[in-house]
Structures are given as structure tokens and as C-alpha cells.
């Protein structure tokens, strides 16, 4: 069993969801159900497993149900049908008090438009989660100061959100979510409202934090570049249905349908594809292990970094795993073919 298990979730928006639910369970599509019943299908038969410590990205066009899905994980939205398990416990069975305790202990959320309290200072915003937990003032402010410094906002403790730029406001949002030390970080298009350069900074910052903190991160985005950069695994939503789940290379190499292919068309493949995916594996029986004079590269090296090596050593390259054992070979032709595909 995974850390988070979502099983056959359906979400129908509207006053009488039963009929629309029955249609959705029969596999009718979102548009037909809307014209027949006037109800919007938010999610349709979505199942997912998320492991502890991974960064799981959910991607899809606007209106595909991403925000709806992530809000099921902390029950800001309740499903029309289905189960959501956290460490084996079905969170849908929780009472209000239990649910609030669960949110306080385990979850932190970051919002697209930041969701900061406009009447509170940066310090009070970052300390907000601990205030809800009734931690005493001194303790929560100490914790908040630590995280404010960590996200690079030292000196802005007494500013108000509307005095900060978008990027700085989202740093406040991130610090606020981290201050309660949650196991899971839910990020709904957290960087989508930011300028490209600042967005890239924030992505790097998040990756750096994650390499130290090892949280379970569920990250929503409509941007495949962002998904490929951050995600250990990526799920793709379309009209509320899950189209494909896989590692970044799988999404790029084997898009499940035209919708996914349209996403991947403009992607820089050399940044996504890694030696391990491209190499000819060494056959255990024959042990044709390449040549001793070939250079060795790590299995997770990206194509863009392999390319100059392949040009310098056209004869071949050895691919080694983390124990320095040879696990495959790459030739210059293979590298060029992968780029051209």
C-alpha cells in the first residue's frame, strides 16, 4: 500500500449529482453529461498512488480538474464517490475535529494566488498554521522567523503582503506551509502566476528544499517543462479523467494519446531523456561490455550532457550505475537518433 491512495474518485458539481454520477460511471464523457444533466464532471474515476518522499506532479489544461483533485487530498472538496487513504486511513470517514487535527499535523498547502491574510504581517502569516494549533506566541514566531530566513525574506517580517512582489508573496506562502513541518506539501499551480525568471528561481528553490526535507509533494501545473523539471512522476488529467501516469521519460517517450503528445511536442527532449532510457542494455549472457577505452557516464545523465561526449568519442560510451558497474552502452548514432525522434 502506498502512502496516499486515491481510489476511483468521482466528483460531480451540482445539486443532484446522482444521475450524472451513474452516467460518469458508465463512462460517458464530460460534455455529454453536462448537456444531459446540467452537471459538471470535475473528476471521473481517478485512481492514484503517491509514495512517501516523492514529488508527484499533476498536469493538464485549464479546467481539466487539477485543482479539484488536489483539494480532495485535504478535503477542501469531498468526492461524490470513491475513497482517499492516507497511510491506510480513509480520510472521508474523519469527523470534523479529526479532519482538522489531521490537516494541522500532516498537511501544508500553497495556492496559485498565494491566499495570504492581507491584514496580517509576513511574520503573522508565516506563523498562522502554528497559531491555529494554539502554539504559544514566542514559539510560533521563532519558528516563523526561521522559515522566513530560509526562503530569503529576512528583514520583511513586518511588511504586509500587498507591499511585496508576487515572487516574494509566494515565498511567504511556501514558508507558511513549511512552518508547521507537514509531511505533505500540496501546491496548486504555486508558481503559475509568477514571471518566467522568478518562476524558474522558485522551482530551483523548491528542489533545493526538497533535497533536504524529503517531503511528499503534490504539485499541480499546466506547464510540462515545470512538470518535467520537478516531478519524480507525472499524472496527466483531461476532462477530469486520468490519461497517463509515469516517470518524465515515459511521458515524453511514450505519450499515451494525442492529448499528451500535444503537450510533449514542443518539449526539449534532450533535457528529459537520460542515459538509462536510451542505452543498449548489456546482455547478462553475452557480456559484450563495450570497450575499456570508452568513457563512462552515469545512468541518470541527461541527453543534453551526453551529446558533447558522444561527439568527442564517436566509437561508444559506457553507461554505469551508482555502483560503477557497466549496465549498458551508447553510440553516437543512437544519441543522434534519440535527438531526432
Amino acid at each position, binding site marked *: 500500500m502506498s502512502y496516499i491512495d486515491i481510489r476511483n474518485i468521482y466528483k460531480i458539481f451540482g445539486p443532484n449529482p446522482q444521475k450524472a454520477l451513474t452516467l460518469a460511471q458508465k463512462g460517458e464523457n464530460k460534455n455529454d453529461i453536462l448537456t444531459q444533466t446540467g452537471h459538471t464532471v470535475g473528476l471521473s474515476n481517478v485512481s492514484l498512488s503517491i509514495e512517501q518522499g516523492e514529488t508527484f506532479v499533476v498536469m493538464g489544461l485549464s479546467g481539466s480538474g487539477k485543482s479539484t483533485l488536489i483539494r480532495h487530498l485535504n478535503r477542501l472538496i469531498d468526492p461524490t464517490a470513491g475513497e482517499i487513504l492516507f497511510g491506510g486511513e480513509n480520510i472521508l470517514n474523519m469527523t470534523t475535529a479529526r479532519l482538522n487535527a489531521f490537516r494541522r499535523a500532516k498537511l501544508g498547502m500553497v*495556492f*496559485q494566488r498565494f*491566499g*495570504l491574510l492581507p491584514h496580517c504581517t509576513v511574520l503573522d502569516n508565516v506563523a498562522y498554521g502554528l*497559531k491555529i494549533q494554539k502554539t504559544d506566541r514566542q514559539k510560533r514566531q521563532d519558528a516563523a522567523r526561521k522559515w522566513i530566513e530560509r526562503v530569503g525574506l529576512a528583514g520583511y517580517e513586518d511588511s504586509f503582503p500587498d507591499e511585496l512582489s508576487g515572487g516574494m508573496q509566494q515565498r511567504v506562502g511556501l514558508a507558511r506551509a513549511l512552518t508547521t513541518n507537514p509531511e505533505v506539501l500540496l501546491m496548486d499551480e504555486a508558481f503559475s502566476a509568477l514571471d518566467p525568471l522568478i518562476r524558474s528561481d522558485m522551482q530551483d528553490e523548491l528542489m533545493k528544499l526538497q533535497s533536504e526535507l524529503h517531503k511528499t509533494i503534490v504539485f499541480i501545473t499546466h506547464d510540462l517543462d515545470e512538470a518535467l523539471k520537478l516531478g519524480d512522476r507525472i499524472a496527466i488529467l483531461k476532462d477530469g479523467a486520468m490519461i497517463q501516469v509515469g516517470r518524465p521519460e515515459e511521458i515524453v517517450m511514450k505519450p499515451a494519446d494525442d492529448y499528451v503528445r500535444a503537450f510533449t511536442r514542443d518539449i526539449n527532449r534532450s533535457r528529459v531523456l537520460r542515459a538509462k532510457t536510451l542505452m543498449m542494455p548489456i546482455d547478462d549472457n553475452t557480456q559484450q561490455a563495450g570497450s575499456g577505452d570508452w568513457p563512462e557516464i552515469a545512468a541518470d545523465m541527461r541527453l543534453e550532457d551526453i551529446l558533447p561526449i558522444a561527439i568527442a568519442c564517436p566509437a561508444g560510451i559506457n553507461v554505469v550505475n551508482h555502483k560503477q558497474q557497466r549496465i549498458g552502452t551508447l553510440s553516437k548514432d543512437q544519441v543522434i537518433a534519440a535527438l531526432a525522434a
Partner: protein
Amino acid sequence: MFPDKLNIPLGKSVNALVDWLVVNYGDAFEAFADALLTVLVWLEHLLRAAPWWLVIAIIAAIAYHASRSWKTTLGLALAMVAIGTLGLWDKAMQTLALMIIATGLSVIIGIPVGIGMAMSNKLRAVMIPLLDMMQTMPSFVYLIPALMLFGLGKVPAIIATVIYASPPVIRLTDLGIRLVDKEVLEASRSFGASRGQILWGVQLPLALPNIMAGINQTTMMSISMVVIASMIGARGLGEQVLTGIQRLDVGQGVEAGIAIVLLAVVFDRIGQSYGKKSRHSAKAGDGA
């Protein structure tokens, strides 16, 4: 001619209801009226007994606290002095007492009702037409049952004023809470805030500018009721206007009218200054 057969005797039923209330709950109404009267009489006594300069000093202090402007403070203090020079100080204090009690009661009732409306669509569906009715129904219509339940005097005057003046604070409390940014609310819920924590920590502080605007409107409306209230026995500036009209003493009517306007201006300026202040602090103010 509309057929008489289709006439529904609504009037009779209302009479029966009022009679029934008087017979069965007369004591309860009396107890409530007594309590209200005690507070009002106490306040009225306090304001009339206090030296005039002390009252003006307190109003000036409130004006300064609200506006942080010496100009506004001085202007409002002069307006109060002008009421005194018209020879209407004592009457103005009676009106002030009635107004403070009526506004206070409107706010005490209005804010919780407004909160309830924001939380429950059902309550809202019931309240909206009721509020419309309270604002459009001529006040004499509810003065009559108020008279029957509470007798002639200050208490029915307060009740009538509250009925007339409370809708703005109710409506604007409801509106203010409903306008709070949905994402901020989601953020609060996502951290496990309870309903009370959301209400006190997020919804009310962010709705404050609208609530203040509602309180200001309610205050203005309760001032505008003083003449009508004096018809059922409330003393004060309204009474002066009324006797002025009855005796065709236009001068006396105008004097009292000016005093009412001055009182209204003083409270409007103070209310608006507090409104501005809360708008500022809801956006980027002194923290919570």
C-alpha cells in the same frame, strides 16, 4: 371591482396575533421593556447631568481617535457648541441617548444576524424579503403594534428605530463576509482552522470595512427616526420639531431641525473616519 369573496382577512389575523401576544407574553414584553428603559434612563441621566464641556471633550477625543485630524476634530466640536448655542443642549442629550441605545441594539442584533445570513443560504432567503419589508414599510405600521405591546414612551420608540435602522448593518455584515477572498478562506481551512478561528481570524477582520459602513448607515438612519419616534412619546429634538409644527412655530422647527442635522454630521464624520481606518487595516493595517 375585485370580488369581495376573494378578500383574505389578513388584517384580522394580525390583530389576533398582536392580541394573543399581549395576553400571553405581556409580562415578558414588560420585563424586556423595563430592562431597556433602565439602561436608557441611566444613559440619558448621565448625558444630561454631565457638564457640557466634558461631553464635547469626549466627542472631540473620539473624533480625533477616528480621524487623526485636528481640523475634523475642531469642526465637530464646534458643531456640538452650535447645538448648545441654539439652546437645545438638553434636548440633544436626550436624543443622543436614544440614538446610542437604538444604534447599539441594532448592531448587537444586526452583526450576528448578518453572520448567520452569510453562513446559511436558507436564513438568507428568509431574511432578504424581511429586510426589504423593514425598510419599505411605513414606520407607522409597526409603531402601532409596538405601542400595543410596550405602551406609549421611549421603549416603542427604540423598537421602531431598531426595526427601521438595523437592515444596513445586517446586509453589509452579510455582504462583507461573503466577499472575503475564497482562496484566503481555503488557506485558512487547509491549515485546520475551526469555524470559530475562521470567523474571528479571517472573515470578520476582512469584512470589517463593510461592517463599519453598515454601522455608519444604521447610525444615520436612527437619527433620521427621531422625529417619528417623538410622536410616540420619545423626548428630545424630535419633540421640538413636532411641537414647532403643531404650534406653527416655524422658527422653533428650523432650530431643532438644524440641531438634528449637526448631530447627524458629527456622527457621520466619526463613522466614516473609522470606516476609512478599518479599510486601511483590512488591507495593510495593524495586524491581528
